[in-house]
């Protein structure tokens, strides 16, 4: 499953590393957008297989932030 970015902004925190176990609702990334902190949560429980962004990246709406294998 892909974690899709819903709000264009800049990545300020990557809180997860590859192969980590995540629960639904865990915060994976924090973006800054419109001077607000926007938390990106995992839509499902699983294992993080790939992270596509790093701190400082500008990420548009609709881009894939990470890939999660559902468990």
């Amino acid at each position, binding site marked *: 499953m892909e974690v899709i970015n819903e*709000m*264009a902004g800049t990545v300020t925190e990557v809180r997860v590393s590859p192969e980590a176990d995540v629960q639904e609702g865990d915060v994976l990334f924090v973006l800054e*957008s*419109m001077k*607000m902190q926007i*938390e990106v949560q995992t839509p499902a429980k699983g294992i993080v297989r790939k992270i596509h962004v790093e701190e400082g990246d500008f990420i548009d*709406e609709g881009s894939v932030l990470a890939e999660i294998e559902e468990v």
Partner: protein
Amino acid sequence: MEREEKVLKELERIKKGGPQRGHEKQKAEGKLFVRDRLKLFLDDGEPYTEFGRFARSGDPEFAADGIVTGTGKIDGRLVFFAANDYTVKAGSIGRYHGQKFILSQIAAIRARKPMVYLVDSSGARIDETGGYHCERSIGLFYYHSIMSGFVPQIGVLYGTCFAGTAYTPVFCDVLIMMKDAAMAIASPRMVKMVIGEDVTPQALGGAQMHASVSGSCDFIADTEEQAAEIVKKLVGFLPDNSDCLPPEAEAKEPKTDPAKIDDIIPPDANRPYNVRKLIEAFVDADSFLELKAKYAQELVVGFARLGGKVIGIVANQPSVKGGAIFPESSDKGAGFIWLCDAYNIPLVYLCDTPGFMAGSAVERGGILRRGRNFIFATSCATVPRVCVVVRKAYGAGIYAMSGPAYDPDITLALPSAELAVMGPEAAINAVFFNKLQAIEDKEERAKVEKNLRDAYREGYNIFKLAGEMIVDDLIPPRDLRKECIRYFEAYKDKHVDRPKRRHATIVGG
């Protein structure tokens, strides 16, 4: 008498609906027979009046021509209804069926009463209606349009509904879809034929899709009982027509003590919180009914009661996308404000937004044009309006949220309020960019930047703004409920005259 017996016997047959195979099909799809369905809605378990019962009575397969139409009482309130009978030719719209539908709409207009549509129809009965879709007698969407904003129209969609008939659900002021229902302008089979796309009914137009992506559905119901409960609640919030006030109920204290409001709003202006918690600490307990809860979630809209009286709430949601206003949330806000204004429902705006979203994605999505509709709807709404500046009120966001310049009856600020063209980070960057870049020493630059931000922030200190009467009043958060109740009471007979015109040129407000 034999004559009376004959009528009674025939009525008994008609009430049984379609043939056995029709009933089996309906049951197999987990749906109720229309007359059992109506029992969930109506006070006496059956229509109060019903007409056209004998439509097509000569044909045993076409009981009432597949639609039950008339009036019924919902918690004592009389409403008109039209409910398709799927056991008769899959609820398809034949000549008399269509006529009954339209006659009930015309009747609701004359009687000035709300109309409930229980939609369970496969569409037009093509085999019997040659020129069907152009006949004058089938202008149901014409009547939907004429009724819009005059009498409330509430719809429930039970099954799949493709092509023309899918307009009835979307013409309703509020639409409930059963979880397995679907609607689309063209069926998957037609889609495959005309554009070559392979798609399932659910992916094409399922309840989830319409509730979260298209924004065409307000509620998803898991059971028919649940759908009926939602309709009953909605009827309780809406007046009979646009000349009436919504019904009152007994006042209840809020679920959360209003004294907690100050703790609900975080001290750091960039930190998210769930605005529903603020709503709970302010309206009558368990009265909040959120519409389109899964769509454009950065804006929360819904009906509630305040001291027993109906209000509409428009609230930015800081826990979703920072509470920024997007094209979709602009539509959602504009539509809800228009609905409340049509039916004399006063509005409370809870403003906490960093403004309209910026960037190329939202520009392509028409943020200016659709944001305009939000500002337009607010500006034109003549129901009593209270603007509460909860926290951020940046940029044009506060215009849409009925800010001081947009003619609210009162603007109340909480102590956390920040009214500014933009936040301090963006403002200092915009105004002093060159000056800051010219400072070579990084630490020095950061220091100067911080001082500039602090000075900027002090410029919109809420005590200062209240002192300059930019807001009408600064209130202790615990008084929010009390103040709103009193202002709405003060403005209950509000009347606003606007310049005479045929109508605005902006559609979709």
